């Protein structure tokens, strides 16, 4: 909505298909870069005869990955469900708290410092505590660790997003004598969506990290974090790397889902 927009013709609409094609073509450089890194990695490990203890070749990791697919799948599922559950809970709680804080000044003043304090808690410190609170064999323990990590960025972004409304839009709603709840649903929520999705993207990455860290403090023996710990102890380094690769794929899938949802739900972000 720039003031100097052209006047005669509408800006050419590219359409959804073209947008998806654009997204696909933007992924080509990334895929090529990844391939190049893998080839270089393979070449360096072989060329300098680096021992697998330090760094296995990507091809060895890939073969282990395929061979152990069943066990890796289970490990990623055990860790991933804690990550997903915590992600949903933390994001949901962060949004609701942020919405309440945006509505009432005193809540904002009370909650923001507490939110900052929560955000500063190291995950490593919370994991044993949650293990104590919940059964260490409950998904809720690790999910709580994840939720705590996801909560903070969502709280801050929701508060920021809900108060990022345009002055002109506010005047419009005022001139139409819109009741408060309508201003909230029709103006504030849509304005906040890009911010909320920003927090979801950050949260998706943090969720996987937090879930794996929580694995290290007990819990399920077949979890990905526990798996890595055990494989390292038995000197199966290639197996540990394969587990890392599996977690990486899960993280990418989660992030990709959030990005896809963002594109679908906030298509105006592509407008010129």
């Amino acid at each position, binding site marked *: 909505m720039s003031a100097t927009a052209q006047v005669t013709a509408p800006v050419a609409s590219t359409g959804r298909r073209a947008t998806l094609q654009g997204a696909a073509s933007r992924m080509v450089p990334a895929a090529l870069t990844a391939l190049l890194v893998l080839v270089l990695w393979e070449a360096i490990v072989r060329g300098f005869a680096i021992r697998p203890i330090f760094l296995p070749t990507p091809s060895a990791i890939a073969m282990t990955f395929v061979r152990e697919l069943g066990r890796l799948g289970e490990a990623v599922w055990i860790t991933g469900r804690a990550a997903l559950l915590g992600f949903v809970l933390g994001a949901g709680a962060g949004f609701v708290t942020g919405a309440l804080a945006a509505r009432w000044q005193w809540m904002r003043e009370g909650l923001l410092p507490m939110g900052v304090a929560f955000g500063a808690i190291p995950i490593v410190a919370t994991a044993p505590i949650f293990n104590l609170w919940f059964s260490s064999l409950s998904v809720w323990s690790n999910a709580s660790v994840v939720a705590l990590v996801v909560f903070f960025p969502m709280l801050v972004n929701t508060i920021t997003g809900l108060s990022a409304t345009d002055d002109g839009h506010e005047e419009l709603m005022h*001139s139409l*004598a819109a009741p408060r709840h309508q201003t909230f649903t029709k103006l504030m929520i849509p304005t906040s969506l890009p911010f909320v999705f920003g927090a979801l993207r950050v949260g998706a990455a943090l969720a996987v990290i937090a879930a794996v860290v929580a694995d290290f403090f007990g819990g399920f023996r077949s979890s990905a974090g526990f798996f890595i710990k055990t494989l390292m102890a038995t000197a199966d380094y290639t197996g540990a790397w394969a587990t890392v690769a599996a977690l990486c794929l899960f993280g990418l899938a989660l992030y990709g889902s959030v990005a896809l949802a963002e594109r679908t739900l906030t298509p105006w972000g592509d407008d010129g």
Partner: protein
Amino acid sequence: MTTSEGSATSTTPDRAAGEPSTPDADRALVSVREVTKRFGDGSDAVTALRDVSIDVPSRSFWSLIGPSGCGKSTLLRVMGDLIEPTAGAVTVGGKTAAEARRSRDYGMVFQKPTLFNWRTVRRNVELPLEILGMNRDERRRRADEMLQLVELGEFATKRPGQLSGGMQQRVAIARALSFEPSLLLMDEPFGALDEITRERMNDELLRIWQRLQTTVVFVTHSIPEAVFLSSHIVVMSPRPGRVLAEIDVDLPYPRDEETRESPRYFELVTEVRETLRQAQQG
């Protein structure tokens, strides 16, 4: 530049309010009584408006014109209950400005289109109707009707970001008119557009105004625009904003390209310009 001394002048003296300004005017819809607006307080206080009184008759098209900082936008915002006057009062059809706003008497068009970019063009026009609680089918019918009126019918499903600036402003006009407010307040709506587009928008606006028979108060700093559109022009002086003169525009409606080339049009443009120049010097 010729002076207007010889021409027949219809400039009325300062605050000659209350007189019917157009032949078909029956009563004052909007009455502004000795409105003063100060911003800030103490030694930093700026007086934006001082003792402004005007009476806008029903179904007329009034323009407020003046140099930057003359308080014309402030006056419009006081009329629309977006800000409160420091002293004085505004009534609209007998109601206070706040009551009028709450009963949805105002359609407002701002300098920026202020469309919701997350809504389609049609749903932007539907917004006031949603707030009024109108049902879905009726809303849609009304919105499409309004979009036809501003000749954007085929753009109903586009998003505002896909339209040009002029088209976005036409959507904003359709939105402001969708709920049939008794008063249309427009704050330099075409200020950001180029001259050619602005003239075309002026033609459109007059056509719509004549069809809907609504009352318009229009803020502008363009003299030709004010003369072409208005039935009555309020010339305002720079800080503190006061009513310097009121000029009746006796050009017959409907107006078109011929109007813009008529001698009377040029006389009126010159008259407004002279009045504004005196304001700058005084």
